[in-house]
């Protein structure tokens, strides 16, 4: 039996792959956060709750309307995005002139509201959601049996992340977005509707969270608390990657997922804290984050 650092190769590769799966979630979520922070300068604490909302929508679509996974995969992000528009237009907008801390506090309050409401209606034990037919079963990769669905999660996340990166960095729309970040007044002077751009950006960011939620539905328990368990780790990921950096968020998300997976093999007790330890180290050495620019 081949061993790496005393751990059987099988276990090592297996955890690596599982880490990649988790990393995909980190990547999509921190991407959404990074996009929102880049343009709005708002830390969207509600990101976790909106991810949870996406997962619940998938379940509700199935249970109440018989809509299958694929439909919800497209529909849920749209609904979450619309909800995001409501939040931005009616709540967040008022706070832009103030200290950015208030945006964080507002979204924190929204998180509590959403989690409380869902918890009150559905309890905490969670709802079951089965894997879609097409993705059931598992493939024997030799060193482990990987459920097909998890492979799909990695593929879907990477594709979505790359698409987002492409749009923001390589298209005109993205250029407008980035310009709006640098100098909103000037961009507005050019006739671009900056407030609309901001609203849509927020909607897009949270739609990403909703998408991640639907992806997570078959794997994790769909519970009102699923977002809050994740959001703090995602924050750490964003701090490590450097806020406002799109590529940084993606790479850091995937990378940290893998590192966390490996930690589970060598030092399981530390697996939940390793991301924060890395964050502390990065802060000491490179306060702006690995890919970030000092703002």
């Amino acid at each position: 039996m081949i061993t790496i650092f005393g751990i059987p190769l099988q276990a090592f590769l297996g955890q690596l792959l599982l880490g990649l799966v988790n990393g995909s979630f980190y990547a999509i979520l921190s991407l959404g956060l990074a996009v929102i922070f880049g343009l709005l300068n708002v830390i969207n604490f509600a990101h976790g709750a909106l991810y949870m909302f996406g997962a619940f929508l998938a379940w509700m679509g199935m249970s109440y309307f018989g809509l299958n996974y694929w439909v919800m995969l497209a529909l849920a992000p749209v609904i979450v995005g619309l909800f995001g528009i409501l939040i931005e237009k009616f709540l967040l907008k008022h706070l832009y002139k103030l200290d950015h801390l208030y945006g964080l506090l507002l979204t924190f309050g929204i998180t509590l509201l959403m989690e409380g409401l869902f918890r009150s209606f559905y309890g905490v034990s969670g709802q079951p959601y089965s894997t879609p037919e097409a993705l059931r079963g598992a493939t024997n990769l030799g060193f482990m049996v990987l459920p097909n669905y998890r492979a799909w999660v990695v593929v879907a996340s990477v594709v979505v992340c790359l698409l987002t990166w492409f749009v923001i960095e390589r298209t005109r729309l993205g250029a407008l977005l980035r310009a709006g970040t640098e100098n909103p007044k000037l961009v507005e002077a050019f006739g671009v509707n900056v407030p609309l751009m901001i609203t849509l950006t927020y909607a897009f960011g949270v739609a990403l969270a909703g998408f991640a939620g639907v992806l997570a539905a078959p794997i994790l328990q769909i519970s009102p608390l699923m977002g809050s368990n994740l959001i703090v780790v995602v924050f750490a990921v964003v701090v490590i990657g450097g806020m406002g950096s799109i590529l940084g968020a993606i790479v850091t998300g995937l990378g940290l997922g893998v590192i966390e997976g490996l930690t589970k093999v060598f030092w399981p007790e530390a697996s939940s804290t390793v991301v924060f330890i890395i964050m502390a180290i990065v802060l000491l050495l490179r306060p702006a984050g690995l890919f970030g620019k000092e703002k």
Partner: protein
Amino acid sequence: MNRQALGYVLFAVFLAAIPMLGIYPIFAMKIMCYALFACAFNLLLGFTGLLSFGHAAFLGSAAYASGHAIKVWGFSPELGILYGVAIAGLLGVVMGALAIRRSGIYFAMITMALSQMVYFFFLQAKFTGGEDGLQGVPRGTLFGLIDLKSDLNLYYLVMTIFVLGYFIIWRTVHSPFGQVLKAIRENEPRAISLGYDVERFKLLAFVLSALLAGLAGSTKMLIFVSATLSDATWQMSGLVILMTLIGGLGTLVGPVLGAFIVVLLENKVGDFGAAVAKLTGVEWFQRLGESVTIVIGLIFVICVLAFRRGVVGEVNAWLEKRKAVSTQA
């Protein structure tokens, strides 16, 4: 100044009389602990302008540390509390040193992440008992003389601690050190240009806040003779922010009132929900009681949007306006 002193004396008398008024002492003690916690937090946010999203780490670490010291090492309560405070302070130095490197939102996120690390440590560590918590800590005898098993005796100890903690904060705010903190909050670049070592002041404020939050934690541990994970969660950090926000940022009395409102809320939402359920016949309101989170979230949102000065802040502003109007007329 005299009117203020009179006000405080009256309040202290009221506090001392609480057990006689038939009010459940444990409830009053709980409020005082949270009030001290909120005041400590306000020192950092309201007076220095630093939003820490991880203050629960200090509450929890002090609770666990003093609980462990008293239960396992046989410390007496006063030494146990001091030990808890010291641990919180140490944690404050470490967390502060790391977090102060950045400011504003980044500072908040770093404190949140660091305190999450502390939470996970407590989750895993053997001595905390994980999900079960540290239970059955003996209250012991204070200075070998006063038996703290009696809720009444404990009440006076907690009251003294609260008054002491509040006084420390009051004194800090009204000192030259406090003035520098306010200057940093108002305009940091200017404070730097005036020659102040801003980083050092921020760190000092952070550690002081951590120490006092730790004091609140150790005291709370004695009341409930236990230390559990909920003391160190981010929800607890959020709760203390809410208390300060509702009460009034940057005021001295605000956090005390805020703590009172929030604890009362937690206790009463259940009854309120049941009453509304009976009134409207809508069964769901019954469950509202079980979800204090919804109400807290709603209040948070409303406060941030429309009520940023908090109760005391609004009252002060209203009184100022009244005075301005009356002097105009």
